[in-house]
């Protein structure tokens, strides 16, 4: 049984079909990359999975349970976690508290004391343990992204949805993040979906399977290298060969 199943999911905003009849299966421990140009429906897909929006058509099944119309806060304890493209820290709280909030209300459901204790562990996994006491709003955009990853991991998810988590990072940071994601994926059998607009080289090193979105539809799905060499994918990124 797959961990997450999307059955012909559609979401419209007025006349625009943001996600058009998309079906997708994700298994436990999968590493999947979702790529696609700006406006291809990636973020809407995430919002449908995490419960920010409900679909107009189709079903979403998570861990055997129909979650199509389940409110966001009831999905999270089942084992969903996500980061945001533009990080959304709880600004006036410390970095440690931010991560602890993840541990308190995610699948881990820890009490306050244990959550604050374990937060440091996740901060050191992503390598920002020195920032624990800092007010989250004072972090750089990059540090915020590391913090969001730690917060998502602290939730002990079965499925982790990463939204452009590596954008803007230097190669050393990208290496570290990929290393972290690989490790949690293997150790805790977390399925990781990573959404990427550019940074193709990062996706080739991390994802086993890639889904390409284009104009709300699933254009191609398959093994990473096959997909990225598919002429249709090359075309939506680079345009048609003219000579």
């Amino acid at each position, binding site marked *: 049984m797959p961990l997450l199943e999307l059955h012909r999911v559609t979401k419209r905003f007025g006349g625009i079909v943001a996600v058009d009849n998309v079906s997708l299966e994700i298994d436990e421990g999968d590493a999947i990359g979702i790529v696609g140009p700006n406006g291809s429906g990636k973020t809407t897909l995430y919002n449908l999975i995490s419960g*920010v929006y409900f679909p107009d058509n189709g079903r979403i099944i998570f861990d055997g349970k129909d979650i199509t119309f389940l409110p966001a806060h009831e999905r999270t304890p089942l084992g969903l976690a996500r980061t945001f493209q533009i990080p959304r820290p709880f600004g006036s709280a410390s970095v440690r508290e931010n991560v602890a909030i993840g541990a308190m*209300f995610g699948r881990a459901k820890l009490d*306050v004391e244990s959550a604050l204790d374990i937060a440091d562990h996740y901060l050191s996994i992503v390598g920002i343990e020195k920032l624990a*006491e800092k007010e989250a709003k004072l972090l750089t955009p990059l540090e915020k992204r590391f913090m969001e990853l730690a917060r998502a991991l602290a939730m002990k998810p079965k499925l982790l949805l990463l939204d452009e988590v590596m954008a803007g990072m230097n190669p050393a940071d990208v290496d570290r993040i990929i290393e972290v994601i690989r490790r949690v994926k293997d150790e805790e059998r977390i399925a990781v979906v990573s959404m990427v607009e550019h940074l193709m080289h990062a996706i080739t090193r991390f994802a086993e399977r890639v889904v390409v979105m284009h104009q709300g539809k699933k254009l191609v799905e398959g093994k990473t290298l096959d997909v990225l060499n598919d002429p249709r994918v090359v075309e939506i990124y680079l345009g048609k060969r003219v000579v």
Partner: protein
Amino acid sequence: MKIRSYKPLLPLFLIYALLILIAVAVPGMWQPVAFFMFYVALGQAFNIFMGLTGYVDFGYVAFLGLGAYGMAIAIKYFSSLGLISILLGILLAVVMSILLSLAVGAVALRLRGAYFAIATIGVNEGFRYLIEGVRLWGGSEGIVLSGLMRRTFGRETANLLSTFFSDILIIAIAILAAMTTIWILNRKMGYALLALREDEDAARVMGINVTKYKIMAFITSASFAGLIGAVAWTLKLTYVFPEDVFNIHYTVEAIVIVMLGGAGTLLGPVVGGLIYGVLKYYLSVVFPGIQLLILAPMLILTIIAFPEGIVGFIKKKGKKSRISYYLR
């Protein structure tokens, strides 16, 4: 539960102890201190909702007003029970505020930010016109209890109730509000409220049932408001008039106190309430008639100097020092 997380109660109780000492030891200070304590308690009650959730309820005074009526109704109709009617009044005040907060919360807490604030303005005015319009609970003539209280409790007990006992109860409410606040801050609820105050959508995605926690804070805050109204108005003044108790003026004062001291902090509303109460009291003694003209610019300057409130400011400055153990 670590003892350390309750340390911030220490400076707060020191302030209370000092105030009580002044009230008892300095002749003529009992009534001024009671006046300050009203604002301290009001600030703390309002802080549990506004400070912790970030929502501004412009109809907040309706809970105090309803509490005042709860006490008045209990004394008026159950005075045959003797002093038990006071207990009944406290109970009725809390129950009535809770019922109103559930009704208002179920509708208005679906709205966010300014929309919530606008929606709640109507609650207070609505109640006043309802009572006056349908002549509920005595209509605009209110409920006057002084004669009844003297007859049923005896002159001395009635006097004691309004000049001493009501003040003691306000202090007790302030202490209870402080303990409730830190209890909330130290629990999951405190972190849930912190998260939703900062970013409600992100909080939902983190697994926080934001509606549940908002309503919990709203009900808690409203019950304290009901208690304050019952004790500081009905019991102390021995009368209730709708235009007095459903007066938006008190909501504005509560907002000022919370902002002045530091929204969402434990000590903030105490400091804010004290500053506001002391200034208001002594300015009207020294500059009768123009006290508000002096008070307003002072408050504006304080808010400009300390946008996060006085306690919020000290908390930020003292982050690395040992003061931080005692501030929340």
